[in-house]
């Protein structure tokens, strides 16, 4: 098969000995995310602090906990708002940006940063040491920017919940 000639397989021995313990990647900076969602627009930051009453209302409407009171929001010159938010899963931290049109409809969502960590590996230095000095060509390094994982990423349920929370926030505090 032709496809196999295009594969350069790492020898099995190298596979065993070159682990990296966390996955982190930045897709977009703040400005890049703003321009990706609202091309050509100007952005004015609005400091939004969610009050107790607003928090209660958002949680009632969405069933999603409001953990952070300060929300990073920008008003967009062409209409709408740009919001940066974070969601925290069991093992991952995702920073993402959402653009909402002035009618409160999601215009676009972009992941800005994705970070994964698994505490037991980072804490367990003894376990990690077994690999040190044995690596082939890939350095053992925490927070290494690894490009492509051929195994599932974690569920995006938390992002969906985050968007629900932001839509309610828009309705309650920004509209």
């Amino acid at each position, binding site marked *: *098969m032709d496809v196999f000639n295009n594969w*350069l*397989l*790492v*020898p099995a021995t190298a596979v065993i000995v070159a682990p990296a*313990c966390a996955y982190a990647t930045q897709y977009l900076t703040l400005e890049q995310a703003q321009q990706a969602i609202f091309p050509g627009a100007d952005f004015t930051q609005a400091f939004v602090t969610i009050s107790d009453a607003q928090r209660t209302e958002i949680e009632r409407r969405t069933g999603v906990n409001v953990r952070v009171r300060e929300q990073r929001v920008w008003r967009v010159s062409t209409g709408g708002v740009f919001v940066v938010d974070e969601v925290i899963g069991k093992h991952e931290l995702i920073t993402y940006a959402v653009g909402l049109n002035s009618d409160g409809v999601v215009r676009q969502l972009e*992941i800005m940063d994705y970070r994964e960590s*698994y505490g037991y590996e980072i804490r367990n230095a003894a376990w990690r040491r077994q690999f040190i000095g044995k690596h082939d060509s890939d350095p053992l390094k925490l927070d290494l920017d690894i490009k492509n994982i051929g*195994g*599932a990423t974690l569920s995006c349920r938390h992002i969906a919940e985050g968007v629900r929370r932001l839509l309610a926030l828009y309705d309650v505090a920004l509209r």
Partner: protein
Amino acid sequence: MSDTLTVALRRARPLLGTLVEVTAHGACQTQLMQAVDAAFDTIALVQRLMSFHDAASDVGRMNRLAYRVAVRVHPWTWVVLRAAQRLARASAGVFDVTVGGELMRLGYLPAAVRGSLDRRARWADVRLLPGRRVRFARRLLIDLGGIAKGFAVDRAVQCLRDRGASAGLVNAGGDLRGFGPVEWRIHLRHPARPGLLLPFADLASGALATSAGYFSRRVRHGAVHTSILHGRRRVASTATFSASVAASNCMLADGLTKLVVLRGHRACGLVRRLGGRAFILQAHDADAKPLSGSSAG
């Protein structure tokens, strides 16, 4: 690298229940941005057509209606259904998209329909009729899950090519496909420690899909099981290894991984006959063993 690879873009969005990553290389930033946007739009269309969760999708409509009337589906849904049926026939029913009811009962899929399902229903009860119409001979639920994801990756790659990207990679939660004069280093998760990433292979052009239970493994009635079900026996896989399959397209690669998860080394011959190449990553030593063919590219 040639001069045409001057700009690179990499974006991620949540789609298909996972994080989908699109990377594109090309000569023109504006053209690439449009290509990447179009690739995400393509994946979003596949999601709208084939999501189990969406009652208005082709899959949702079939699951509600196809037991009573023939349901006409989108050409893309048709392509995926035909591929699913071919794989079911070739694997004597080990691969079977009619496990939706069991996945629902196990809590992996939300409740989709009222009324009782026929537990005897199997892949052969999905009838593909002329005019892209589908009819179920028994009350059943299909879930195109993995192969729809693979299909979405294939369409997104085609989209990047059509819009002038000189190289690219689309990765939908472990179903990935690359093209162009770039070698993409692929890492696999350690099957027992999914936060640990192991460099596996450099992919130039072709698809690689990986299936494992690490994010779906649950304990139920004292037994560990995953969301990968044996189509004929309706038993959830308890495999502790991960299975990766390289193939010319991602839809096929994804489908074949399910056979490897369910049948282990016994799937070897079939995977090869169907045009794939399988690798098992064992949990105990994280040692990649090629199942079919030699390990040198």
